[in-house]
């Protein structure tokens, strides 16, 4: 079939990429994946909302890291600097801290929805397991992030919080030392929590999110009740 009119510019851009990557077909299958109509409910969006908040945490966390200094001498002053001198620094920090709380709430709400609709049952057991690990990672983000402002609340909250580990039979002392890096919460603990909060947990979260999303794609959303 001969056509004389030139296709739209976006069609031509698509053609340019498709000529080189042959990607249009798979991409369309990916984007056009059919979603059953029973899933068009707000409470089926709780997982997506949690992921949106995770992205907000990534963006605001990177912005905070541009000014934050993870040493006992400088941490507190760098937070004061963010709040008082950096334009919208107070807002970015507040969003980061509120988003952390909301993320836990939406994560739990998402789990409750999955529990009540029985969506964790066969064949979706593995995605439930990945989801619980994501909840634990979210809690670990909250726990490690709490120390970073290095104010009284941060130091003593983390002291009391980490003491719980010391009670574990046999290996409690060892675990406590591993977590704190020293007998007391100190400079070593701060850099440790910073590294865990900024590198270890994000990498783990991305891995488990990828598993979570690949599985939901592979299996489709659970059927109607």
């Amino acid at each position, binding site marked *: 079939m001969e056509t004389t009119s030139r296709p739209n510019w976006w069609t031509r851009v698509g053609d340019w990429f498709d000529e080189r990557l042959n990607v249009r077909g798979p991409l369309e*299958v990916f984007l056009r994946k059919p979603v059953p109509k029973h*899933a068009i409910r707000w409470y089926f969006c709780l997982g997506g909302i949690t992921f*949106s908040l995770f992205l907000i945490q990534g963006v605001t966390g990177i912005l905070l890291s541009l000014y934050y200094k993870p040493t006992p001498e400088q941490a507190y002053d760098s937070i004061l600097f963010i709040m008082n001198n950096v334009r919208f620094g107070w*807002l970015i920090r507040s969003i980061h801290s509120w988003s952390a709380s909301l993320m836990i709430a939406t994560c739990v709400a998402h789990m409750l929805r999955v529990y009540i*609709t029985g969506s964790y049952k066969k064949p979706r057991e593995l995605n439930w397991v990945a989801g619980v690990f994501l909840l634990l990672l979210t809690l670990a983000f909250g*726990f490690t992030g709490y120390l970073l402002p290095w104010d*009284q609340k941060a130091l003593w909250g983390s002291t*009391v919080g980490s003491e719980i580990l010391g009670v574990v039979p046999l290996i409690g002392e060892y675990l406590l030392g591993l977590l704190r890096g020293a007998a007391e919460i100190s400079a070593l603990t701060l850099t440790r929590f910073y590294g865990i909060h900024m590198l270890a947990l994000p990498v783990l979260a991305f891995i488990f999110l990828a598993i979570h999303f690949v599985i939901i794609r592979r299996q489709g959303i659970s059927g109607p009740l």
Partner: protein
Amino acid sequence: MSEAEYKRPEPYQHPEYPEEDTIPFFPNYIILEVITSYIVLALLVVLASLLPTGLEEQADPFSTPAHIKPEWYFLWIYQFIKVPPLLIGPGLLAELAGILIPAIGIVLLIILPFLDRKPQRHPRNRKLAMVITGLILAGFVALSIWGWYS
């Protein structure tokens, strides 16, 4: 293009909803995710603007504050570890109970789908499970409130 041409698969019907109407993930479904996310983001900006996160005095290892409370989402465990000493008296056993019971709880949560293997999904057909879950949730809320006011 002929050989490498992508073959579109037959329209796929999920075995769990072979009859049900579907909509495409993009853009029809994702727009709902975007809208609900933006509602929460709006709430987030309002909260962060009206109740900005504060900062206490700089950390001082030599001055323990009177009231140390964790974030709201750790209040339940903060309070829970105080319960066994109240029931069986302080000691190693009480400390162990305080940490082992939540640890076992987390393990049970992870392996829940392998413990609960009945195929019934509707909450109406899982009354016992719903009652137990409701009680556990009420326990979490009660411990958190107790921890908040303790």
